[in-house]
């Protein structure tokens, strides 16, 4: 019992919360970047531009089917071979963005496919260009449909940042390791505290998505 009381001292909890802040920071930056990049990639793949769409499609498929842990290794250990030496936090953001962009690209593409083809044709028949029809007619509906999928992808991303511990990014999981490195008896209380912190953030997000979903419907 004493272990639990000692483990939850304010100094330790504050250190965990600092880790949580980095976790959220990495997640938010990565989700914004990967939303933009993913949208572009998804539309390119949908648009069937000769060669380009196919090549991008293959790259997406390869990255999408690898464990994120490997992508983190490659960005941190592989990139410096090109003279680019990111610090741990930018490396984590980069790895997350590369991985999540491919996941989001797939969500966007299937979202576009789910919008009735007739709408695209009708707008084209009315004289709109492909890009206009995409921008004004198809995408707004597609994004609306994709909100639940996008939010659950965002939740996955928050949880997945825990893997970045492996390259010693100072996020929640790594700060947890440091706390129980002071005294290994803290390990179980620290794991419980981390579980609660992740849960609160992720569950709040999923509630938010339900509210948005209901408003939109």
């Amino acid at each position: 019992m004493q272990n639990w009381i000692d483990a939850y001292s304010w100094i330790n909890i504050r250190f965990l919360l600092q880790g949580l802040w980095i976790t959220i920071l990495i997640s938010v930056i990565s989700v914004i970047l990967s939303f933009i990049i993913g949208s572009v990639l998804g539309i390119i793949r949908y648009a069937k531009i000769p060669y380009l769409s196919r090549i991008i499609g293959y790259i997406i498929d390869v990255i999408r089917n690898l464990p994120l842990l490997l992508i983190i290794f490659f960005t941190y250990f592989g990139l410096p071979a090109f003279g680019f030496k990111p610090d741990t936090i930018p490396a984590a953001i980069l790895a997350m963005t590369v991985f999540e962009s491919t996941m989001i690209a797939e969500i966007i593409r299937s979202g576009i496919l789910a919008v009735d083809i007739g709408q695209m044709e009708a707008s084209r028949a009315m004289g709109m260009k492909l890009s206009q029809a995409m921008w004004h007619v198809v995408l707004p509906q597609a994004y609306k449909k994709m909100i639940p999928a996008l939010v659950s992808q965002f939740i996955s991303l928050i949880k997945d940042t825990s893997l970045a511990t492996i390259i010693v990014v100072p996020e929640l999981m790594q700060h947890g390791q440091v706390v129980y490195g002071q005294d290994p008896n803290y390990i179980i209380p620290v794991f419980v505290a981390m579980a609660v912190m992740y849960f609160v953030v992720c569950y709040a997000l999923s509630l938010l998505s339900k509210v948005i979903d209901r408003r939109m419907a």
Partner: protein
Amino acid sequence: MKKKLKYLSLLITSLLLVLTLTGCGSQSLSSQNVLENDKKSKTITWGVKADTKLLGLVDVKDGKEKGFEVDLAKALTKKMLGKDATAKFVTVTSQSRIPLLKNGNIDAIIATMTITPERKKTIDFANPYFDAGQSILVKKGSSVKKVQDLNGKTIIGVVGSNSVQNVKKFAPKAQVLQLPDYAQALTALKSGQGDALTTDNVILAGMAVSNPGYELTGKAFTTEPYGIGINKGQKDFKKAVNKALKEVQADGTYNKLIMKWFGDVPGFNYKEVLRK
């Protein structure tokens, strides 16, 4: 036919990705002189541990790295580059330290790394700065009294440390489990995932302090001279580190740091590691 083509192009994509990742070697790094660069910037970037009590551990109060290795690195930096120089720290794990050094993210490793012939093939070492020895930690009253008793039993170690490979020489029939960090390894030992935990005695002593039910058993069965890891080809840097090491030993700084960190650790005789 179309399907086959698809798979073929997919394979080519993967291979291209692979080639771009591995193709470009980092020859540029060995041609740069790390010491010259550091002299200009007045900083040395050291790779240190974040989770090892007494040697390199991040303090939750201020988020700074603390421990014997951290203090030694600070002292060496001052000797090498002058009083106004600063030591910058990057936290590493046993798994990540060598890739990070080879990539140039850090200038040197001072992170509980033993000098071994295998490692010497990939990186260079300065002279040893600490003499640890590998030992085992068991539950009090365990039938395991020495490393040889572990044949047919399960030993827990940490990924990337050479203690895992060492122990196979002394107990070839033992099964070895490798975990990501020392706290997890110790908790796995407590959970009964293995019969003993093996690593260097100084690290185990730190664990035994906060876990009275566990003890170091038998004598240290290897000598583990810790060395500062340096990239191949950095002769100037290596020379400077060795010179600075000699100086901190001569002026008593080294022994002061030993006393500070290991002076009152039960089960660990600090006098054995003092240097004249």
